[in-house]
């Protein structure tokens, strides 16, 4: 059974704090993604990675960075959290094969920045 796990379900942080969100997948997938989901705006891609130590900016990378030191783990970093980063953060992974690109999602982290 495919599995993507995220380090926290709920997180509350103060403005200016450095925040780490971690994601682990056990499917040996090459691709990993970080999204945020906000009411009325849908899912928006922040960053993705297609291999260890590789990363690409998505649609809204400002204020975020990522790290992928191991194939199974992809971290999202908020260098200095701000209130407008309060959101649901979703991690996903997929295979790097031409025949399919289904992304499998983790349970999400609800981040509140005060």
């Amino acid at each position, binding site marked *: 059974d495919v599995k993507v796990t995220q380090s926290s379900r709920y997180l509350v942080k103060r403005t200016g704090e450095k925040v780490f969100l971690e994601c682990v997948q056990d499917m040996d997938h090459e691709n990993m993604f970080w999204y945020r989901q906000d009411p009325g705006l849908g899912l928006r*891609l922040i960053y993705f990675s297609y291999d260890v130590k590789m990363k690409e900016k998505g649609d809204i990378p400002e204020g975020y960075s990522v790290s992928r030191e191991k194939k199974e783990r992809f971290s999202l970093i908020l260098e200095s959290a701000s209130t407008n980063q309060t959101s649901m953060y979703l991690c996903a992974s*997929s295979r790097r094969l031409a025949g399919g690109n289904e992304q499998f999602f983790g349970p999400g982290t609800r981040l509140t920045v005060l």
Partner: protein
Amino acid sequence: EDQVTQSPEALRLQEGESSSLNCSYTVSGLRGLFWYRQDPGKGPEFLFTLYSAGEEKEKERLKATLTKKESFLHITAPKPEDSATYLCAVWSWGSGAGSYQLTFGKGTKLSVIP
């Protein structure tokens, strides 16, 4: 730029009342279309992948179909446990930030009343 529009935004059905959700898309070369189910406060759960016009996939009370411009998710005799937000996403040859990016619609929130 790829665009995905889902309609209606919200749908309320009586238990047993069949209906369809729509996902229309404008993309530069479709590689795949995906349907997901998302329960409140959770990550999206993968349902179906469709690759070419005319293709159909079924799972229990759900049936997904694809044309060159849109996809439908047909729900037959729904039950209250089918209540969720249904998301569609497209994967295209013109996807930005690498060829594995998906473009998501904003979803249809389905409520099935007993």
